[in-house]
């Protein structure tokens, strides 16, 4: 990015034109307290901010806040250029309008760790535009040149000590033409960006007043809980709702495509009624599925040629000719996102209109799906985005499952209704991170890695969705091979192949998507290669990454932080890993040991991150801690398995996640960088599983190639070693 990015007015208005230029604010969702969103818009030069006559600056954020900090980082981008008083900044959730479409993806979406890089220029320009107009308004008032004035902390300062606050200037600025071009600040003059700022959403969240989707209530609203099929793809054969209807508070029982909805005056009667339903399902072919059977089929496929995702040289001829051949199979299971807030969706369907309130990462898609389900046009549907009690990808579903079913219930009920999922519904409900099987080989000759063949087997997330034509090229779903086909290591003979399997289990992007599995395989196996060559895993990566300064930067920093090479207590081991994802680079060193019962204990994690130019360093640190914790849940515990087509897990007892007593100490170092901004929400996840697996090997000599790393798998690997 240039130091002074210019953006033409034409470009700027392209995104906002459909809203008719200036005043665009239609939606006030008081997510963070009732007083917010009530200020009059005195000055609203674009879709992203307005300044009230009391100086209150409302910044409208088109990204969903799900913990990653966009309700603070994106306002910081606006406020830096606007030079407003940060203490007077308020945040409002954007309506589902074209102005807030993703600058690259062309629809309203929060995902791909893209919020900061995709909004940097647009929001900086929005702030700079408003600042330019406020300065102009002050200069006109004082009859001086704008160049003799400057903006600072919510006021314009002019010659001879003159000062007018933004609130005082707002009405006058609103009458000025919006400038064609605005100059952005030189980063060396930043006052906000790069400084640790408190989150704007924290006080309401700690007070208990913040509104998540599940908290939406309106007078007369009903609550629905749905009896869902026991097997993916099953359809309802018959039901007996007699007992369900007898539950006090149950008002209606209605069959919809997703199952049978029990509608009641509150969650508890709806859930009780749901549990009293008697249903018979036509299970279809899904009842034949089992993890064991799938695993065998995947392993069989993995030994056959797949579609080629990357080819350099000839791995096929180089591998058999190598002096030493390493071969391994890696496996990872289906994973549930399991955000703490279970899925939910509020719908108020009236003739000719439909209001939806939910935590959506995918407003454009969800709104279109809702319109179709309601028999309305998309413009007749309003989608208000609430806070999300975690998303991790689950609320960006091309199938809009939780929205469509809620509209279908609303059609039957003809009253405002909120569908709420139980935890069991959520864990058994599909849209999992795919199960993957990887077969990988390396050829070593003369102390060098000369060939590498990696065959990946698993379901495509994208195939069969509306995104297939854009994201699946020549049969290769890029999200299946990302992190593997583009590995940074210079290997003269390299082949990456893919088998995309199909079955009825719905899959979806899960925080870090393909990287969640490929980093584990590539970075574990690279450790195996290093050790086979008799090299230190850190030094070996250093050697291979000579041409990759950003990989090398984080690698060296994580190693330095960890005291790589220094002594550890007996039984402890360190493992290292470096991985690029979502335009950012992360290296982690984990220190682990086994406790008396053979359980893995992760003591410390040192994490170095290079995400380019930074906004809020405290959010970056928090996201790295978060990525480590989320990734450890998968590395140590997480697995969705199937038997006779039924998901064997149901709640946090059978699908355990990391708890406080197992959280390692995480130290984060952020590399100072002038590079383009990269992603931060997902990039902390991929490195932790391989860092821990490599550390486990260093500690006890056991290589675990299947996740999660349960005590049983560790014991079995120790028996092999």
């Amino acid at each position, binding site marked *: 990015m240039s130091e002074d990015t210019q953006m033409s007015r034409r470009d700027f208005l392209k995104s906002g034109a459909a809203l008719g230029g200036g005043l665009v604010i239609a939606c006030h969702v008081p997510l963070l307290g009732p007083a917010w969103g009530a200020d009059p818009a005195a000055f609203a030069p674009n879709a992203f901010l307005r300044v009230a006559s009391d100086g209150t600056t409302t910044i409208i954020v088109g990204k969903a806040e799900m913990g990653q900090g966009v309700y603070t980082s994106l306002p910081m981008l606006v406020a830096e250029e606007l030079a407003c008083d940060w203490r007077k900044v308020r945040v409002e959730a954007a309506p589902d309008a074209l102005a807030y479409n993703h600058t690259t993806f062309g629809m309203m979406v929060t995902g791909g760790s893209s919020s900061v890089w995709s909004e940097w220029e647009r929001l900086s320009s929005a702030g700079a535009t408003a600042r330019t107009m406020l300065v102009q308004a002050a200069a006109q008032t004082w009859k001086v040149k704008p160049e003799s004035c400057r903006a600072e902390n919510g006021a314009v300062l002019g010659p001879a000590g003159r000062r007018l606050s933004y609130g005082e200037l707002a009405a006058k600025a609103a009458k000025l033409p919006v400038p064609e071009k605005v100059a952005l600040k030189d980063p060396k003059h930043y006052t906000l960006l790069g400084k640790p700022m408190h989150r704007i959403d924290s006080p309401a969240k*700690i007070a208990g007043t913040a509104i998540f989707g599940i908290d939406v209530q309106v007078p007369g609203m009903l609550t629905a809980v749905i009896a869902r099929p026991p097997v993916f793809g099953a359809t309802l054969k018959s039901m007996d709702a007699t007992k369900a209807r007898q539950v006090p508070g149950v008002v209606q029982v209605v069959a919809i495509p997703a199952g049978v909805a029990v509608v009641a005056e509150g969650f508890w009667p709806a859930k009780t009624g749901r549990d009293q339903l008697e249903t018979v399902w036509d299970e279809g072919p899904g009842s034949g599925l089992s993890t064991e059977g799938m695993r065998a089929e995947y392993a069989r496929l993995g030994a056959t040629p797949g579609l080629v995702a990357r080819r350099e040289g000839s791995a096929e001829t180089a591998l058999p000719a190598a002096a030493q051949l390493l071969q391994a199979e890696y496996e990872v299971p289906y994973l549930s996102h399991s955000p703490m807030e279970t899925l939910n969706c509020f719908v108020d369907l009236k003739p000719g209109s439909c209001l939806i309130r939910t935590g959506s990462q995918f407003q454009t898609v969800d709104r279109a799906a809702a319109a179709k389900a309601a028999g309305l046009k998309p413009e007749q549907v309003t989608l208000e985005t609430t806070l999300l009690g975690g998303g991790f990808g689950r609320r960006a579903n091309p199938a809009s499952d939780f929205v469509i079913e809620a509209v279908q219930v609303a059609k039957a009920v003809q009253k405002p209704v909120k569908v709420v999922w139980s935890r069991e519904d959520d864990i058994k409900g599909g849209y999992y991170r795919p199960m993957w099987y990887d077969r990988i080989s390396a050829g070593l000759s003369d102390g060098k890695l000369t060939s590498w063949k990696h065959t990946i087997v698993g379901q495509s997330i994208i195939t069969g969705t509306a995104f297939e034509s854009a994201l699946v090229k020549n049969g290769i779903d890029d999200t299946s091979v990302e992190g593997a086909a583009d590995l940074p290591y210079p290997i003269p003979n390299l082949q990456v192949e893919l088998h995309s399997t199909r079955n009825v289990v719905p899959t979806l992007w899960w925080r870090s998507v393909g990287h969640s599995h490929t980093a584990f395989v590539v970075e574990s196996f690279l450790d195996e290669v290093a050790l086979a060559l008799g090299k230190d895993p850190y030094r070996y990566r250093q050697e291979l990454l000579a041409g990759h300064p950003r990989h090398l930067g984080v690698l060296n920093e994580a190693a330095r932080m960890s005291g790589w090479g220094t002594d550890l207590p007996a039984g402890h081991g360190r493992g290292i890993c470096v991985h690029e994802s979502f335009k950012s680079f992360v290296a982690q060193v984990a220190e682990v040991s086994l406790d008396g019962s053979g359980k893995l204990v992760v003591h410390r994690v040192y994490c170095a991150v290079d995400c380019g130019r930074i906004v809020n360093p405290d959010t970056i640190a928090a996201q790295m801690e978060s990525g480590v914790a989320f990734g450890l849940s998968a590395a140590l515990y997480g697995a969705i398995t199937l038997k006779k087509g039924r998901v064997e897990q149901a709640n946090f007892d059978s699908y355990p996640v990391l*708890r406080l*007593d197992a959280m390692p100490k995480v130290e984060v170092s952020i590399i100072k960088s002038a590079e383009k901004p990269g992603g931060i929400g997902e990039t902390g996840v991929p490195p932790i599983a391989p860092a821990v697996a490599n550390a486990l090997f260093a500690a006890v000599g056991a290589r675990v190639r299947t996740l999660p790393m349960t005590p049983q798998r560790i014991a079995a690997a120790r028996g092999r070693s």
Partner: protein
Amino acid sequence: MITFHVNGKLHRVDASPDTPLLWVLRDNLKLTGTKFGCGEGLCGACTVLINDLPQRSCSVSVSEVQDKRITTIEGIPASHPVKKSWIAQEVSQCGYCQPGQVVSAVALLKRHPKPTEVQIDHAMAGNICRCGSYQRIRTAIHAAAGTVSKGGKP
């Protein structure tokens, strides 16, 4: 009719006696700060104080709280050291589990004003956070207690 105090206020509620306290708080009394996470007492998102003791409100029926004193997240003053510390240490991410975390921490500090790492583990391991704010929860508890965090595992 079941009668009990919530945040110092007397409530008379007409609900089926087996209804979990959680849903009476959320659906009848509109106190939505107390969150639903699992319904089985496994995640702690619904933690409230019942007669000053932390309990999972999803697993306590409303009939069991007759004449008892309930404190929810809304009833803990903003000036409470735990709430202040949670903001100062920037614990929240998505924030959904944090009401339960705060209530558990309030109860912990009432029982152990200077908690050890093991006491923190014991009191807080029942509260799941999928965003992984655990390290900051530990730091925030120490800050509220005026003790120094050693941080993480030994």
